[in-house]
């Protein structure tokens, strides 16, 4: 499964694609089963340069009933920095965030697709 992510142009915040709109919470992002749907969404996202910067697809997996990004880099993006638990999306601390946080230390990074480079 894949999720489409980017950073908001005006704020830089991490956002997730859902049917043409951008959600701020990872769990509100749309999950794509097929590569074709995902690629179509990516093309559509790239047509929104005033909304987001550098959209790209990430791999996600089901861990104990919770969808999480495969890559720990993406888990950090979905949560926030681990040195400031009150900063970033993890601040609200709901069940989805807790599930994501619980698996972050054991994550793998093979989910990087079109990694942003400066």
């Amino acid at each position, binding site marked *: 499964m894949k999720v489409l992510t980017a*950073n908001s*142009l*005006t*704020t*830089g*915040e*991490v956002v997730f694609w859902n049917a043409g709109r951008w959600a701020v919470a990872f769990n509100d992002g749309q999950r794509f089963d097929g590569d074709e749907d995902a690629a179509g969404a990516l093309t559509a996202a790239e047509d929104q*340069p*005033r909304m987001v*910067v*550098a959209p790209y697809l990430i791999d996600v997996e089901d861990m104990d009933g919770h969808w999480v990004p495969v*890559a*720990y*880099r993406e888990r*950090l*993006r979905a949560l*926030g*920095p*681990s*040195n*400031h638990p009150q*900063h*970033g999306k993890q601040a609200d601390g709901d069940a989805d965030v807790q599930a994501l946080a619980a698996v972050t230390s054991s*994550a*793998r*990074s*093979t989910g990087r697709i079109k990694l*942003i*480079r*400066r």
Partner: protein
Amino acid sequence: MYRYDDLDRQMLTDRSNEFRHQAARRLSGEITEDQFKPLRLMNGLYLQLHAYMLRVAIPFGTLSTAQLRRLAWVATTYDKGYGHFTTRTNVQLHWIKLRDAPDILDALAEVGLHAIQTSGNCIRNVTADPYAGATADEVDDPRVWAEAIREWSTVHPEFSYLPRKFKIAVTAAEKDRAAIRSYDIGLHLRRTRDGELSFEVMAGGGQGRTPYLAKTIREHLPASRLLSYLDAILRVYNRAGRRDNIHKARIKILVNSLGVEEFARQVEAEWAQIEAAEVDLPDTELARIRAAFQPQVFDPQPAVSPVFEAAKAADPEFARFARRNVHPHKVPGYAILDISLKAPGETPGDASSAQMETVADLADAYSQGEVRVNYTQNLVLPHVKLADVPAVYARLKEARLATANIDLITDIIACPGLDYCTLANARAIPVAQAIAKRFADPERAEAIGELGIKISGCINACGHHHLGAIGILGVDKKGEEYYQLSLGGSAGADAELARILGPAMSGQSIPDAIETLVETYLAHRQDGERFLDTVRRTGLQPFKEAVYAVAD
């Protein structure tokens, strides 16, 4: 300290206005991200994992209290109430919004701060000895020369598109506190036997994936000829440095592929063709800059302060602070006071807005209104009366800024790593926090003695891992965060690159591995040896055996 003149201020205002228009054109869709990105990077604005990051230059690590207060205000108003001081003596704000960036640059420009040349393939912020103007072991204030370099290199048309970024560091003291041999150009100012100021010029240092220590290309450069000689170095580099491969584009690769003698020969040949009068600093300009760094007036003080001595005798914690964080000043009765941004459990180099305000207040009250940023990610109050140290300490303690650990095992350098940075492979901050917590007992840390741990989250080495007595490099090993240990590095006058100890290990194993390294050192230590000395004497073998025997 140097205050921006009308020319400097006008340039900052113009630049800020220009960026405001560039950002507006990006937001309106008039220019694309590919067009905008180099423009925002020229103004220090990066897009990182969670937000934009603004890197603000602090030339030669010197801040006025007005500047520090403005940074605190920007951090509170536009960020999450803290700043991160870096190994380049810059400050990074990690939660910036693009829409706020023009206002922030305006607010910074009002106090002579900016983010120009904190990114891109240009001459970056010039760094210098953080104890400049305060230490007894210097022959001149190195900031006079660093400021001349700043003015020469700022928006220099010939050197704005170099093959790669370019960093210059200056010291005028015998003890190198600016890691000058890890720079593209390291400048060491000394006095010749006949009393003339003269630079030893070193070139080709750098860290990253191919670390080199800078090599001396000229033993004695008359100080007055500095700018034309820098011009010559930059011209040779600009012409011959590689532009085809980003990993081979730094001057260190050029110096080492040509050989230092040939590189020096080409520089001398280029230098001979430069019209010195057009480039070198006129005496009047040097005098103008020097006047800005006139030594402060220090009220005469007794060399020994009864107040300071009594406080040490009464409070063992204060005595420890005095041993670790208080250093001799050139004027009797004064001290240079290090403020550690490394309280165990905190993020190395982070200071909250409230802490910045406290430091600014203390600098105004006790340190002639000056604050320094050290590349070790700590702050410095350069001119404190010994008699005032107990009062300063009390205020620092209230602000959680009185950690007495300078140069000890918990005084860890760490880059932001994968918690923030798009380039990182692994996190650095949590590793630093875990080690600092393990060695949080200050008595034990002091018994272990001087030991620099330096952590980078990727091969770019912003955390100086090549220069750590213990260096830790985060790597991505089969998709997991792993850490490679190296030993024996040093940044000072005895600079040396650390050597890799063995296979990388998981982050959870690092505190135990550090513990093992420390135990091995203590078992082998001879009288007066620092960790680094023991490693140099015994070699890596005993440490390797101890760490990997445990790991097996």
